[in-house]
């Protein structure tokens, strides 16, 4: 550049070799020899001019812009030659005829190189051995697809048959629309609930939104997420073949005989016996079916006429009555009452003279004989006197502990009483009325006794403890069977008049039916009640049984027992009887059937007794 500038002495710039940018902001570029300013040429060439120049000016290629003077200079032929030579790296103007060094060429410059040969042979060997591959031809994927399924005969492997295809993504509903019907949008409450819920519990994974037009719909922020989760499901989620239950729910309901065909059974509440002021714990019907005795927490025993609901007689016994039991022998008229630690024998004299006489005879049979038996010492028999005698109390059997239940033998001479106690073997006494004798049949404590019962025909004795029922043979004095009730706490028990079936209710809402010939496990467990079962009863003649529960209902079931040993009993619930009012969380406490009619009595915590016919 210097040379080129030198060849134009007339506009020599005297500023020297300095960066041109220093004069950027001035109108001049430097000073000439005379000390005058050299002004920048007025340049208004823009890109377009430059381009036009390039196209049109044949000298363009040899035109150079001199920054120092700011002018365009067209190079001469010599100068172009010089530039070309400089580019080639030759500074010297002419090629000299003599070499600078006279050294002859090496031998290696004209014989083939050994190292190169070695290298080539290595490559050749590598190609031969297949180690070195020729450059692959890149295929862009255009032609790489073909008819893959051209031959569809291919074997369907076992794996394809075992393959569990991933379920497809469920199709979107109206909720997902960008403009859903208004009922599908969330209300404020639903929105709040949705936000509170754990993402896993939400029914919808998104909030339905409404946009008035398509242009307002934004991008869905979870789109990639959802796709990714689908991917994860596809390769990570364990799959299992699940059989979907596809049943008509109506088919699940068992086909039972219609209750209408199983009549008679009690259907309506017909009488209410009012008079007690405390909850009525126990009721009992006289064998004739004319009288009903009830014992209540208000300390009275009342005798009702069944047909008229009239209270014929009331005996104040002075203590909460736990249990009453009418002597099942129709030729006597006696009632056993359990209160505190005493068992009273009442003679209500509500029968004809013959019967009253015979019962008096039974009571006084022992008196005429010898002295009262010494007994065990803990049980004391005594005669009632004075006021009590007037009220009808004949005998008092004093027990060492509180008595919870009294039960008669079918013959009417024996009487069993229960004193639940966890710690001693003195829990059950069997009293003989005619000889005024008491005995404790068990010498060992086998658990808390809940209730006892006599076999209606044979000399068997049923003892229900908390979890099981034991059957003792009274003659052989041994246990014959132990029934497992499969319930937590037995509350009550009843024996079928045939003697081969037992039902027991439990506080965990269950009723179990045992077929003694079948097994020691329940033949049927009935979970009909919502709350604890308090009492159960069999009808003496009709194939009926009833259970009373704390939920205030009495459920009457039909239970036919066949004589044929091969046929199992048929159990059909026929009626749910309601009427008792819940008081202190207690509903029905006791239930019993009329001895001859298909009627059922129930006593409840609301101090009433009800008759359903």
């Amino acid at each position, binding site marked *: 550049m210097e040379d080129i500038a030198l060849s134009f002495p007339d506009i020599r710039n005297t500023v020297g070799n300095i960066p041109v940018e220093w004069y950027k902001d001035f109108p001049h570029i430097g000073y000439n020899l005379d000390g005058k300013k050299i002004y920048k040429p007025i340049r208004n060439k823009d890109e377009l001019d430059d381009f036009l120049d390039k196209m049109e000016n044949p000298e363009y290629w040899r035109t150079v812009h001199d920054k120092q003077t700011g002018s365009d200079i067209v190079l001469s032929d010599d100068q172009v030659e010089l530039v070309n030579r400089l580019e080639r790296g030759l500074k010297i103007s002419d090629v000299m005829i003599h070499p600078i060094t006279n050294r002859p060429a090496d031998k290696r410059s004209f014989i083939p190189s050994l190292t190169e040969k070695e290298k080539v042979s290595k490559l050749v060997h590598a190609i031969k051995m297949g180690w070195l591959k020729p450059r692959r031809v890149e295929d862009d994927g255009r032609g790489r697809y073909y008819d893959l399924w051209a031959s569809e005969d291919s074997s369907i492997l076992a794996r394809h048959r075992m393959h569990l295809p991933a379920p497809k993504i469920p199709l979107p509903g109206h909720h997902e629309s960008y*403009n859903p*019907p208004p009922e599908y949008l969330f209300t404020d409450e639903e929105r709040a609930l949705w936000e509170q819920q754990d993402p896993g519990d939400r029914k919808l994974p998104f909030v339905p939104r409404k946009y008035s*037009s398509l242009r307002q719909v934004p991008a869905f922020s979870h789109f990639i997420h959802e796709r990714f989760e689908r*991917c994860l499901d596809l390769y990570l989620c364990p799959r299992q073949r699940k059989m979907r239950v596809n049943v008509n729910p109506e088919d*699940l309901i068992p086909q039972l005989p219609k209750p209408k065909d199983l009549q008679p059974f009690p259907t309506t509440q017909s009488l209410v016996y009012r008079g007690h002021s405390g909850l009525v714990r126990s009721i009992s019907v006289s064998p004739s079916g004319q009288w009903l005795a009830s014992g209540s927490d208000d300390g009275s025993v009342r005798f009702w006429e069944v047909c008229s609901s009239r209270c014929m007689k009331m005996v104040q016994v002075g203590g909460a009555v736990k249990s009453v039991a009418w002597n099942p022998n129709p030729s006597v008229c006696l009632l056993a009452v359990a209160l505190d630690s005493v068992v009273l024998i009442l003679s209500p004299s509500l029968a004809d003279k013959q019967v009253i006489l015979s019962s008096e005879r039974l009571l006084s049979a022992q008196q005429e004989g010898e002295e009262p038996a010494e007994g065990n010492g803990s049980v004391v028999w005594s005669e009632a006197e004075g006021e009590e005698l007037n009220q009808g109390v004949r005998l008092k059997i004093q027990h060492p502990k509180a008595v919870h239940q009294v039960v008669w033998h079918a013959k009417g001479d024996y009487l069993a009483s229960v004193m639940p106690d966890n710690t001693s073997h003195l829990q059950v006494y069997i009293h003989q009325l005619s000889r005024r004798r008491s005995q404790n049949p068990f010498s060992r404590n086998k658990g808390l006794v809940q209730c006892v019962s006599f076999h209606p025909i044979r000399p068997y004795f049923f003892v229900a403890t908390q979890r099981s029922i034991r059957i003792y043979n009274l003659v052989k004095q041994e246990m014959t069977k132990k029934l497992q009730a499969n319930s937590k706490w037995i509350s009550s028990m009843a024996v079928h008049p045939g003697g081969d079936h037992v039902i027991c209710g439990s506080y965990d809402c269950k009723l179990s039916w045992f077929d003694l010939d079948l097994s020691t496990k329940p033949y049927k467990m009935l979970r009909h009640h919502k709350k604890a079962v308090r009492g159960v009863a069999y009808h003496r003649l009709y194939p009926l049984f009833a259970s009373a529960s704390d939920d205030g209902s009495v459920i009457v079931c039909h239970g036919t027992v066949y004589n044929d040993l091969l046929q199992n009993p048929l159990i059909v619930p026929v009626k749910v009887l309601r009427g008792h009012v819940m008081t202190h969380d207690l509903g029905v406490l006791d239930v019993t059937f009329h001895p001859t009619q298909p009627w059922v009595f129930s006593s409840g915590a609301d101090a009433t007794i009800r008759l359903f016919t």
Partner: protein
Amino acid sequence: MGGLQKKKFERGSATNYITRNRARKKLQLSLPDFRRLCILKGIYPHEPKHKKKVNKGSTAPRTFYLLKDIRFLLHEPIVGKFREYKIFVRKLKKAYGKTEWSAVERLRENKPTYKLDHIIKERYPTFIDALRDIDDALCMCFLFSTFARTGKCHVQTIQLCKRLTVEWMNYVITSRSLRKVFLSIKGIYYQAEVMGQLITWVVPYQFSHDHPVDVDYRVMATFTELYTTLLGFVNFRLYNSLNLVYPPKLDSNAESEPKEESEDDYAMNSESYLEKLSALSASLARVVSSAEEEEAQLDHFPTEGIRSAQMEAREKELKQQEAQKKLFEGLKFYLNREVPRESLAFIIRCFGGQVSWDKSVCIGSTYEMTDETITHHIIDRPSVDKQYINRYYIQPQWVYDCVNAKVLLPVEDYFLGVTLPPHLSPFVEEKEGDYVPPEKLKIMALQRGEKTGNEQEEEEEEEEEEEEEEEQEEEEEDDNGDEEDDEEEVAEEKNLKKMEEQRSQGKVIFKVTPGKLKVENKARLEQEEKAEEKRLAIMMMKKKEKYLYDKIMFGKKRKVREANKLAAKRKAHDDAEKAKKKKARK
């Protein structure tokens, strides 16, 4: 004494399963490689029936694979490729470390690649199997084709996805197999019927994605690798089935003019070709230029009674389908620039309509906005300056609703600036007892060809609703029946008690009150009796069956409850609207 002792967990189900870690060790693969292999080969974990037994007595949470599956993987040639790739990476690293650039170049040239053809063939032995599983592939490819080139995945993958999806859409257009479309808040759902298989896919709206950080793109990329291969082969086969040229070529004689114009705007010819294809406005070239598609005509077989009824139904359905295919035939659409061009062009072309757009929006527009023969102008802005009188200005939802209703809906509800009717999902099939939105009822009436005035219909609906309510109330009454009886009894008892008290106090009041005649409804009595019978029978159910029964009934009741809730919500909304209208009138 009794032979060898049997050891636990050496037979039975414990030997059929293998945990993931053990499987990985058996295959001698790293976890990412194992994952990739499972994805490609379609191996998934199985849930054993007795987990504890399989887990050798432990209850630790483990995933189990079938041992057979893992053995099957042992023979996979692609496992060898994975190892080769591992070695390649190691060599490359070494070359980089030594700064041997020629070695790097050589290695890169010989980068090991693998093909998935045999895996596709093995996983889907027949073409129909492949079609059944193509939903996910389509969704994934459509998603990837919308990605920007931000480095989340290879640019080639994005381009390949774009190409394949465009090919797929062109196939659907040519075969006219689109059935349903749905504008959801997530994206646009399409459903097509290809060779008897219903295929559904969703396309996100055209926005740039903000990529979530907790998504593993390597997993997605592996799936996409498989899916692109699958979709490519499926496309090839589908194109062949229609006698179309694959890779697709535009029909040269039909659409030559617009192509010529825009040739120079694009630098690369191949790129412009894909753009033109993706404009979806031109038809495709065929191998054999057939003039008319032969219509499938059901042959008549001489059959009796029931069969013929079935046949009739099928014939009717076919007829309806044919009609749907020609839904937009003869209509000329023009898309304004703010509507989703690709989606609308796709749908309109699928049903035989003609479509165009502004030249600056996209390549491939066929006519100008000034064209006088345009029948529908799709527009999505509140107002427009210059309107032509001989065309409808409608909002885009009309197109989607028409497709779903299978008839051309009245355009009045979709005019410019009008509040749109709700957009319903076409995928919901209401069964008996389900809630049906009133709009759907209206559309169904339209489909049946009934043309009733709107007001009348509304009235009818109202009546219906009222009836429904009454029914509900009645039902409730039925439920409450017993309780009422109880209440009566309680009242009676109260009376009795009162009387007793009075008697006990010595005030005996004799009073004869007029009795009421109890009217006994015979039908109702019978019903009650039946209900009681059923209740008693339910009590006697076995525990297992009771559980099942309760579950089924609970589900049923919940369904009813939900339907009622929706109906109530709708009613409340309608009432509020009415009140508003009244106020406005006043």
